[in-house]
């Protein structure tokens, strides 16, 4: 079965786009914008608004019917890998099936000075009423803050025998986040401890897919709450324990 955007009626395929062309506002700009939309598959674009941002830039708001359609059955998605648990469920699992506190260390590494996300997940205050991992009685969670060199994070992870290492990366200009995340991963591998750690990364442009591609166990993006991260950690720890995988404290 096919699916198309729904504007006002089924299969009318209406989309709304806006963009800026680096050109002055005149008939030529209109023609260019129209042609550009046609190339995007919008056959009869209606330029609702065309306005100068400045003598050299023109802004467009456009509506039109887009010819593309998707075959619903051809889209496959992966089911969520873990179940979101309540605080009580997590506490029970850790108490009965894990038997000790889970050690967690998190940081915004290298040049990244932003800790909003990191603090939202780790600090006791958490975010919008969902308290951070530092407040969990069955976690030993440490927030190293911002601009932490990878070597320092490694040192701390070893010293507390971290089961979980969490990295926050906000800045992504010039793909600095890819570089930093890869650097840390290599460090862990060189140290020979990669397999003994649950390695997580997060940030506004991080996705699970990207994280996995980089070699991380999982990634968290916008909208992540402390409860989600905690659920993942407890689930993953339990899985590894069942598979008899070792952690740093087993060394």
């Amino acid at each position, binding site marked *: 079965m096919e699916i198309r955007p729904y504007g006002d009626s089924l299969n009318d395929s209406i989309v709304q786009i*806006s*963009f*800026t062309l680096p050109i002055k506002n005149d008939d030529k700009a209109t023609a260019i914008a129209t042609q550009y939309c046609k190339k995007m598959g919008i056959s009869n674009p209606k330029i609702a608004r065309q306005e100068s*941002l*400045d*003598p*050299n*830039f023109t*802004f467009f708001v456009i509506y039109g019917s887009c010819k593309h359609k998707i075959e619903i059955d051809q889209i496959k998605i992966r089911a969520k890998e873990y179940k979101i648990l309540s605080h009580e469920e997590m506490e029970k699992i850790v108490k009965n099936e894990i038997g000790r506190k889970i050690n967690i260390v998190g940081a915004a590494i290298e*040049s*990244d*000075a*932003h800790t*909003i996300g990191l*603090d*939202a997940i780790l*600090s*006791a*205050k958490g*975010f*919008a009423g969902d308290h951070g991992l530092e407040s969990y009685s069955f976690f030993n969670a440490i927030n190293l*803050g*911002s*601009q932490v060199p990878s070597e320092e994070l490694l040192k701390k992870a070893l010293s507390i025998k971290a089961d979980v290492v969490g990295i926050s990366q*906000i*800045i992504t*200009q*010039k793909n*600095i986040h890819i570089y930093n995340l890869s650097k840390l991963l290599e460090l862990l591998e060189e140290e020979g401890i990669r397999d003994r750690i649950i390695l997580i990364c997060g940030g*506004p442009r991080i996705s699970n897919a990207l994280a996995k591609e980089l070699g991380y166990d999982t990634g968290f993006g*916008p*909208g992540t709450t402390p409860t989600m991260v905690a659920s993942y950690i407890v689930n993953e720890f339990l899985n590894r324990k069942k598979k008899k995988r070792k952690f740093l404290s087993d060394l």
Partner: protein
Amino acid sequence: MAKLILDKDMVKKARDYANRIASKVQNFIDKNSTTTIERATIRLLGVDGVNKDNVPLPNIVVDSFRDELGSGILYPFVNAMCFYDVNDQKLSEMISQKEIDLKKVPKLEKEKVIPEINKLVKNACLVIKKRKNERYELIEKLGDPSKPWLYVIVATGNIYEDVVQANAAVREGADVIAVIRSTAQSLLDYVPYGITTTGYGGTYATQANFKVMREALDEVADEVGRYIRQVNYCSGLAMPEIAVMGAFERLDMMLNDSLYGIIFRGINTKRTFIDQYFSRMINAAAGVIINTGEDNYLTTADAYKAAHTVIVSQLINEQFAIFSGLKAEQIGLGHAFQINPHLEDSLIYEIAQAQLVRDLFLDYPIKYMPPTVYKTGDIFFSNLLDGMFNFTGILTNQEIQLLGMSTEAIHTPFLQDRFISIKNAKYIFKCAKNLGEQISFNKDSKIVKRANQVLENAVNLLEEINDIGLFKAIEKGIFADIKRDTNSGRGLEGVIKKKDDYFNPFFKELKNV
């Protein structure tokens, strides 16, 4: 004119506590200098440039004399200038090339050196005064934009690209342009040099970059017929040096918060307090408006619950500003619109807070910062939220409005994002221009009650801080629940205890510019 009926005793108590708290810290500040203050001192004379490894000459000079900085760098430096009969820049280059060791230069008679120092200090102050007067002349010629000033940010990493976007924003109606700095800059214990075209999360603050943007803004100001203000950030380990650069390049506004570096960047407490004093003296002399970063208290805390911490920080920042010689029209204390918008009456509480800040600081160019925490990828709702923020701003007579972006939660602003934002603000500031004057607040209203409650909470917190002192309060985590030990943090090694013969006439002369 104050609109809210605030408890006058509470207001007085609040200021008294803040004054006592800050005075005790000022006593400590007066006994110390730092490496960056000494570097700023020779920058004031005119020293600039880097060696072949890109190490700034002020760093090389000051580092070469590190053990003896207790008496200040100025005297031995000028002594050497006199002895070798070279200017400040030439001397620095010779020190850098190891042709001269400041510690080994023979001492000339005081009567030869002191007048030379006084002359150089006066010249430096004249340069600053000249640039300050330039600003007044340009405002006279072009006209001052009406308030609230529309303040927007550019941050591409490439100063030339920043210029393109700044120009577009000004033509759309922006009055103030800030260039966000590269992420790592606050922790650099030096100031980068030269034009830069790459940077992460922003553009490096260098004197050359300042100059490029200044020229561009002056040119576009001429085109649009109003003076355009340029903003950058002193924050970090080089506050005084960046303040010098700002003074020399006629920047108009600079971020300069006495607490921010400590709480949010882990810079050593002592270092920050000492640095902010000298840097603010330079800002004062240059006619620069300082902005403070109280918005930071509301990004991780609940804005409704933490409202009083904003007031406390503002009052403390105010005292330090006054001590450094900043005039009322230069004290641009900050606050923000960050209450959960989905709470019933959240707008009422925002209005209460904004009016409270306005009334407490009647003569100051308050900087109002936009909602960010509750924005999502829903750019349409985000734009509306900015509308409510702008409405609150014009209603409560705010002066500097840092415009919100509909794409706040997604990326650093595109040209079109800034355009939409400016259009939003221009519409609201015009259609509601005199709304504030039409309205008075009922003394039994939620707004007046809320404002007084926040004020009372602030007084209680100030009392607590006054009891234990500001250093201990910071150690306890009173600000943003973040604990900072007085003797840890970056930059502690740069703190220098002043000896009895510490000599630096800038401490006095800057206040006379």
